C-alpha cells in the first residue's frame, strides 16, 4: 500500500478513473491517554480559492456533521478500522470550494492540558467510497509532534479538472485557534 511522506501528493481522479467519492479516515493511537483520546477532534474545512473557509458552515466536525450542500459529511461512527471518517462526494463539492483540508486537534479546556506529542500513532488514509478500498495512506505523522495541539493532516484539492490529495502534516502549537486563524474559521 502506498505510504506518502509529508508534502507528497497523488492525482486521485486521474489515477483512478470513475472515482466519485472519497473517505478520509483518521487513525490514531493515544495509548493509555484516555483524556487525550476523548479530547481529539477530526474535522474538515472547505476552503475557497483564497485557501480560507467562506463561513462557519464550512467547518465539518462532530457538532456540524455536514456541509450545507452535503458534499462533505462526517460519520458519527466510522466504518472499519478508523477512529473517525469523513466522506467526500466529489461531484457535489461546490465549484467555489477549491480544497478540503482535514485537521486533527485537541479540544483544550483549562484544567487538562494535552498535546499531540503524546500520540503514538497518527495516520490519515484515503479510501474509495465505493468499496472502502484504501488508496493511499500517510506516513505516521505522530513522530514529529511535540507541543502541538493541532495538525493540518492533508488536503483534497482541485488541479486542472482532477482532484489530488496531499499530505500536509503541518503542526500548530496554538491548537484549533491557530488553524482557525490560518483557514478563516469564525470562532
Amino acid at each position, binding site marked *: 500500500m502506498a505510504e506518502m511522506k509529508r508534502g507528497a501528493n497523488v492525482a486521485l481522479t486521474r489515477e483512478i478513473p470513475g472515482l466519485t467519492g472519497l473517505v478520509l479516515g483518521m487513525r490514531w493511537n493515544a495509548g493509555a491517554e484516555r483524556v487525550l483520546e476523548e479530547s481529539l477532534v477530526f474535522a474538515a474545512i472547505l476552503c475557497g480559492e483564497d485557501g480560507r473557509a467562506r463561513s462557519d458552515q464550512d467547518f465539518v466536525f462532530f457538532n456540524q456533521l455536514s456541509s450545507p450542500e452535503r458534499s462533505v459529511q462526517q460519520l458519527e461512527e466510522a*466504518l472499519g478500522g478508523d477512529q473517525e471518517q469523513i466522506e467526500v462526494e466529489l461531484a457535489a463539492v461546490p465549484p467555489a470550494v477549491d480544497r478540503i483540508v482535514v485537521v486533527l486537534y485537541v*479540544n483544550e479546556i483549562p484544567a487538562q492540558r494535552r498535546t499531540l506529542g503524546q500520540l503514538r500513532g497518527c495516520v490519515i488514509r484515503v479510501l474509495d467510497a465505493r468499496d472502502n478500498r484504501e488508496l493511499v495512506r500517510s506516513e505516521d505523522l505522530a513522530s514529529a509532534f511535540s507541543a502541538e495541539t493541532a495538525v493540518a493532516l492533508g488536503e483534497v484539492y482541485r488541479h486542472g479538472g482532477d482532484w489530488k490529495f496531499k499530505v500536509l502534516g503541518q503542526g500548530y502549537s496554538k491548537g484549533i485557534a491557530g488553524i482557525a486563524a490560518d483557514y478563516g474559521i469564525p470562532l
Partner: protein
Amino acid sequence: MIPDPATAPPRPDLPFLRRRSKPRPPARTPAAEFVAGRGPHPPHAHHPVAPPPPSPSLDLSRPASPSLDRSRPAAPASASLDLSGPAVAAAPPSPVAAPSSSLDLSEPATPTPAAPRSGPTRPAVPAPRVHRDRRIAAGQQQLLTVTTPTVTLTRVQSGVGHFEVEAVCSREVGDLRLGAAYQLTTGETSTVQYAGGERFAPASARRPVLLAGRDQYEHLSIDLRQVRRLERLAVYAFSESRTPLAWGGTLVATTFGGARIELPLENLYEGTIAVLMSIYVVDGEMVIRAEMETITGDVREAARAYGYDRITWRDDRTPID
C-alpha cells in the same frame, strides 16, 4: 472494534449502514419512501388525509416545489405539501406511480439524465439557519437586556474549545456564589457549584461536561467537546450565608473565540438567590438567554422554577448525586 466492512456480513436491515454500498433505487415511490422511513404515508385518492407532521427527512429547505408544480400552472403554490385528495387526483399521470410526484419533494418530476444523482438531493442554496436569533462574532461584546434577552452561538462556537461564565462582582455585593442546574441528554440532572456542592458535572465523571471553579471570581466552564451531551443548564447566583445580596457586578460569558456576552446584575430584586442565565442546546447551537429572576427560597426552588424537577434533594441547597 467494528468489523471491517470488506469482510463483514451485509446488514441490509440497518439502513444507516447502507450509505456507502447502497445500490440506487430504480424509482422512488411514496410507498418505498415510507417503508424506508424517509417519507410520509402515501395517501389514497379515496381517503383524504390530513397533512402529516413535518418529517425530519423531508427536505423543506428547498424552495417550495421547484419542479413539481410548474407543469401545472393551475395548481396552487402550496400544492406540493397539500396531501389532501384533490391535489393527488390532479397529479399528471407518470410512468412510475401517479400519486408519487406530488409528494416526493426530494426528486424532480422530470429527471435530468445529465445530472448524476447519487444520494439525497442537495439543496441548491445553503440551508437557512434554524434560528434567526442574534449572533455574535469573535471579539464582539453584547449586552443581554430585557428587550434583547438572547444570543445564539453557531455550531462552531458551540462545539470548539470551552465556554466560560464568570460572576465579576466586588465584595460589596456580599458572599455571592455561582452555580448551575443542568440536564444532560442522557437524563442525568443535578447541580454544579464551587461552594458547598459538586464541582464537576456529572459528579463522578473522569472528563466532566461542566466544571465549577474560582480564581479571582467564581466561574463555570463548559467543555464544548462534549456539548452534544448537554441539553440545558440554568446559571444561578446565591448568598452562601443566606443574607440578602446587594446585587451588582456583571455576569460575563466568554466564547472560545473571545466574544463576550454580558449581563449586568444591578437591576435584580433583593433576595438571596437569583437565576441569571439559561443555556439551551438547540440543534447543536447554544442559545444563551438572560433570565434575571430573583427566587424566593434556595437552590432547590430556583431549580424547580426552571423546570429541573427531576433533581432530588437532601436539603434546600444540596442535591442527592
